[in-house]
């Protein structure tokens, strides 16, 4: 049972493609793989940390002030990450820009906190946090790989040229908002197609 708590976040309930949560940073930051990895790491740290703390204090927080308390916990974790990143990874901090503080209102974290952490035990919440953030990171890196190869032909972080033709005539649209929406639409459609085939219709 424990393991599927972890794996459910990655496939069955992948936050981006199944629950359709936390789309704001996904589309904005997935122009480059290293940005996506940076965002994935931040979400990992914040989600796991806040899940654990919230499930620790869940019986202690009265329901009238439930949302403000959760949000203060999550915001403190985000500020922590913001400060650390500003000091030790300045240029990634610069590129993530406003989307780093916006992790606070990222629908996954508050969603998981309210739906899961405030009900289940600490260990379950920890696993769920890890599973969800891995799912999130996989999703965002997947989209980033598609968008970066299409727009620049090479992945900056591993600097391997995958599609040389794109370096000469890059499809600039992929780094812009329309490209992001299209990528996520196509990936979602593929997953749905796989589901429909799997149900044997």
């Amino acid at each position, binding site marked *: 049972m424990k393991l599927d708590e972890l794996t459910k976040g990655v496939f069955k309930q992948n936050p981006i493609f199944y629950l359709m949560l936390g789309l704001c940073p996904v589309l904005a930051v997935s*122009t480059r793989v290293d940005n996506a990895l940076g965002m994935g790491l931040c979400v990992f740290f914040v989600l796991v940390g806040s899940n654990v703390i919230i499930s620790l*204090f869940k019986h*202690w*927080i*009265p329901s*009238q*002030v439930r949302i*403000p*308390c959760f949000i*203060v*916990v999550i*915001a*403190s974790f985000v*500020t*922590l990450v913001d*400060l*650390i990143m*500003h*000091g*030790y990874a*300045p240029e990634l901090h*610069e590129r993530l820009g406003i989307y780093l503080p916006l992790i606070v209102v990222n629908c996954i974290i508050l969603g998981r906190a309210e739906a899961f952490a405030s009900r289940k035990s600490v260990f379950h919440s920890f696993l769920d946090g890890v599973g969800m953030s891995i799912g999130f990171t996989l999703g965002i890196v997947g989209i980033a790989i598609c968008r970066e190869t299409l*727009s*620049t032909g090479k992945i900056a972080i591993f600097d391997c040229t995958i599609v040389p033709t794109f370096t000469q005539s*890059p499809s*600039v649209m992929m*780094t*812009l908002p329309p490209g992001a929406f299209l990528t996520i639409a196509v990936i979602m459609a593929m997953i749905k197609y796989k589901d429909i085939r799997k149900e044997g219709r």
Partner: protein
Amino acid sequence: MGEELKRILGISIPLIIICVISGAALTASYDLTKGKIEMVEQERTNESLSIIFPGANFTEMNGYYIATVSGEEIGYAFIATGKGYGGTIKTMVGMYKNGTISRIHVVSQSETPGLGTMIAEPDFTSQFSGKPVEDVRLKQDGGVIDAITGATISSRAITDTVRERAEVVMNET
């Protein structure tokens, strides 16, 4: 009334405690990282300053730097910020005392990748070197800088912001 008060306290105490804990934790971590953040900011400005006037040392004036090489003032360096196509563009501009631009270096911009981002490439920025401030205009606006094809808005944005800021610094000194 006492019972009502107890109920209100019962609800608000946890929130207050969580706020105070988070405030304390964040101030502690802010103190830890404050030094590092300042150092990073300083490093970044020095690095772009040294690109403009290699080997010069700088004294900070309000809003711009005075570059002195072996004791003798040779020019000024300052940051010009303006709105481009995709967002704000920050450029570090070096200017000799006689009002000609020494060099410019784009610090940060979020123009359209592949098109607007070309304003940071040397073959565009080198056009500014050695030009008097008045001529810093796009060719079609009567100046000497020729814009990047397909990115006229970005090119005009950076050229105008550099010229406006240069004029401001010129009449200040």
